[in-house]
């Protein structure tokens, strides 16, 4: 690999090439009926893996590491953590 001068990285936000979703052992699942779109989960997500969807919060499973903060903090119990199974 050729290293650039000063180990400079030219492409902003290129870490999106690395999908951290594989780290997950529990998967957050949003219940559309219970979600009130308060966006508390969006605010508290350390990985910016929750998007403000049209009807409810949308989890980006490519990057969600399954920490469970969103499910724990949701005041309406709209997010459930279910085990990842293969």
């Amino acid at each position, binding site marked *: *690999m050729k*290293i*650039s001068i000063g*180990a400079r*990285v030219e*492409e*902003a*936000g*290129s*870490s*999106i*090439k*690395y*999908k*951290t979703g594989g*780290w*997950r052992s529990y998967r957050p699942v949003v219940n559309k009926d219970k979600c009130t779109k308060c*966006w508390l989960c*969006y*605010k*508290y*997500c*350390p*990985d*910016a*893996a929750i998007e403000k969807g049209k009807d409810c919060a949308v989890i*980006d499973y*490519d*990057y969600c*590491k*399954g*920490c*469970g*903060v969103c*499910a*724990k*903090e949701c005041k309406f119990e709209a997010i459930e*953590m279910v085990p990842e199974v293969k």
Partner: protein
Amino acid sequence: MIEETEFLAPGHRMCAGCGVALSARIAVNTAGKDTIVVSPTGCMEVTTTQYPETAWRVPFLHVAFENAASAASGIDSALKMLGKRENKNILVFAGDGGTFDIGLQALSGMFERGHKVTFICNDNEAYMNTGIQRCSATPYGAWTTTSPPGKYSIGESKPKKPIARIAAAHCIPYVATATIAYVADYQKKLKKALAVDGPSFIHVLAPCPSGWRFASDELIEVSRLAVQTGVFVLWEVENGEMENLKITKKIPQRKPVEEYLKTQGRFKHLFKPVLRKDVIGQIQAEIDKKFERFGL
């Protein structure tokens, strides 16, 4: 609310449920696109800039452990010389090692010279990046790999260094403490810090699931309990006038400190095999003393 654009892209290698990642995400999204981030060595730098990738969507400069504040000062001066200083934010994200211990000298210099830089210390209370070694931010009684509890030890034997008060003693325009559970409070303080003409310092308590030994989903709860038990007080002060210190989150009914200690494995030796009432009592007494000093 956090702005719609994410300036800290996903795909970074922070642990699941990382408090520092959340703190940085809130801060950089609040500061906006005209921001230059400087970071010394630490969890933040190692996990967000894995060559040849970067998670940052704003200019990011990594420097040595000691001199993040000096590099930020240089950016401030250089931009001024070029006549491009206006409407740009310079943010430093340093860990507790890069602030409390190794970076303190450069930080003090930056304060004294009066550079317009906002220095954010994401405090996770030990050298987490290298394997949970104690530092001067580690609280009294905590387990770390270099302060192991045992027959003759209760864990960390020294109290935490009051870094925000040390910063305030430089009489800089703005100093505040914040934590990730209170996002609006943190954002408000950051906006104030960015608006002042001169150095500003924000001490952010950022719990670490890996090093503090708690389940990752407890992140916000631990951060909230730190405030509710009085372990971490949210305050702000302008121009170092400690007599005008403002408590931004008043806790009318303070919870006993056990509730905070119990959530974390790093304090479990205080409860098992024998309940160390003496040590817990001492931690509680320190908090009570702190509140007395704050006049609460």
